[in-house]
């Protein structure tokens, strides 16, 4: 199966390791991976901060770049939710833009959705001998309704001990530009999330969004906790032969 990778601007710029992990994982599962080079950003930051015109331009670009692909895989619940849930609200019903969105949006999958719903794989043959806790990010939980898909995948990783995160469904406080527009509340939420992570005794905090992990990880690092953060794709791509990505 040929799939287009939508890397997302945050992963592209700051977390290329996640992109490489997705490529190796999907190839291992028999997919042909294409990276449309004209892709940039889904426009979420602009739309959610109140810059709709800029956001709409980026949304239009996205629908053009990814038109015609059978499946588009994004290692981000938040960006996938932007395309599927928010794009239709940006355009007038019945317009050309609306038709283009209706064509592309349903084919955009967050990684765990693609693995379980399209490839029908719940054991990706990964090996990761560590104690891991999983934070369901808000947009993957309440936007995409991923449910237990990510944890089902993690449970089937050899050597991995999955420990439940207390108050998992609570927002970590990242919220895009919220993290710098309301830094005090954002930091207070981050500190409470970090506390929950520490309570699990996990070595690694895993999530389906590097943006949230950047915030929680930045907090854990500032507090000198020693807990690492890792994107779901990086754990799933790890194998006994290859080691962790």
């Amino acid at each position: 199966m040929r799939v287009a990778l939508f890397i997302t601007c945050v992963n592209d710029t700051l977390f290329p390791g996640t992109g490489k992990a997705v490529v190796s994982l999907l190839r291992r599962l028999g997919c042909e991976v294409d990276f449309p080079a004209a892709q940039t950003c889904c426009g979420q930051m602009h739309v959610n901060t109140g810059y709709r015109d800029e956001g709409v331009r980026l949304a239009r670009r996205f629908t053009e770049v990814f038109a015609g692909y059978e499946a588009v895989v994004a290692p981000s619940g938040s960006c996938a939710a932007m395309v599927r849930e928010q794009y239709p609200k940006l355009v007038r019903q019945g317009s050309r833009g609306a038709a283009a969105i209706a064509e592309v949006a349903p084919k955009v999958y967050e990684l765990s959705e693609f693995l379980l719903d399209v490839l029908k794989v719940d054991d990706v043959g990964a090996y990761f001998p560590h104690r891991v806790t999983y934070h369901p990010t808000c947009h993957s939980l309440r936007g995409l309704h991923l449910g237990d898909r990510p944890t089902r995948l993690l449970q089937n990783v050899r050597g991995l001990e999955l420990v439940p995160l207390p108050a998992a469904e609570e927002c970590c406080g990242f919220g895009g530009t919220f993290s710098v527009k309301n830094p005090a509340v954002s930091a207070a939420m981050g500190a409470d999330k970090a506390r929950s992570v520490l309570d699990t005794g996990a070595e690694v905090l895993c999530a389906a969004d590097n943006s949230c992990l950047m915030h929680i990880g930045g907090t854990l690092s500032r507090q000198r906790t020693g807990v690492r953060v890792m994107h779901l794709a990086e754990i799933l791509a790890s194998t006994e032969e290859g080691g962790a990505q």
Partner: protein
Amino acid sequence: MSATFLGMPGNFPQNAAEAVQNSQLRYNLRKATHTIRGKRANVVGELPDWQELRAAGKAIKDDTLRHLDRYLLQLEEAVTRAGGHVHWARDADEANRIVTRLVQATGESEVVKVKSMATQEIGLNEALAAHGITAYETDLAELIVQLGDDFPSHILVPAIHRNRAEIREIFLDKMRPVPADLTDEPRALAEAARLHLRERFLKSKVAVSGANFMIAETGTLVVLESEGNGRMCLTLPETLISVVGIEKLLPSWRDLEVFLQLLPRSSTGERMNPYTSMWTGSAEGQDFHLVLLDNGRTNVLADEVGRQALRCIRCSACLNVCPVYERAGGHAYGSVYPGPIGAILTPQLRGMSSDLDASLPYASSLCGACYEVCPVAIDIPEVLVDLRAKVRHAPAERVGMRVAGWILNDEVRLAKAQRLATRFRKVVPKRLPGPLSAWTDTRDLPEIPEESFRDWWERNERA
């Protein structure tokens, strides 16, 4: 919304930054919101048709709002037929003038009040005081707020920011009569308030209330409460004046079936609230006046996205699940409507010209917990994002976002920007300057990688 509620000046981020430093407040709020949150989840969970009820609530309110003009006239006719008097108030000033005039006409200088958001919104107590009329709050929590010369910080639990030790202090200091040996046991506090209020109920000739619902078909008003103090106010005085927002309508009696399930379960986490009072016009010799309040609501109605905020039934479920409210507290919102619903209602009712009101649509991480629990399915994140597009942005931010938009709208420009960042990766300071210091004050930065994903792909994969 013309009467301005000056709970706190400044803007939300500043107010919230101050509030999060108050560890007692954070403890009180966390304990209280998590308790109600849990109760709500239990009683909502036991209804297999909750999502259907929620959809019905939304549909009924949407129909009401679509034909509000018709239903309001129907209500006026029904109330008048039942011997009540209907007054129309365009804004807070007009509503306050009407109520003042009605109280003056009775010759009384004291009124007792049923807990009401609409009268808080218009600043009725202050307007009455300016004319020598004293308004006594009779809801226990509103009484605590009033005696403490304080502001409400929650829609359902106005004194949520106070713990029982603080309440005891306020009672001893301000309430008369008060038992000299008052302890901070909840039972003792409630008993002391009961003693104090009983005198007021028996003395007062005029009551002021709001209403949770108004039935257009019959002209019936409905008040849901827990203490019974509301019923005392509604039934004992000779004159009853109810100030109600025009969106509180329901078309027919049958519609109550849906809302009497949605509201108690969402707000107090009870299957049924202890007291439900309903009255139609002037009953048993009581003189009844209904003041229908617009105060910005028709402007909200004109907004295709924002109008869903008028479906709100003031249950405060969104406050109790909001991680931002839990840490910032209600006062930070500078409005009688705090929390997620306040963040979309206040800027629409008051406009966004003040620094405070313009900051409210940003008082959310868009986590979506509020939408999930809303009994009338108000998509609060959607309205927040829509309002953000209407706010006047700070010039520096606008420039920054435009530049970012320009870079992101071209893959070559993006690649160049990434390479620039990569080149300086080793000299990025641990603490960033300007507004970005807001990140590095509490969080470490991720390391900038040696190359972007797209450059890696270009180098390795593109063959």
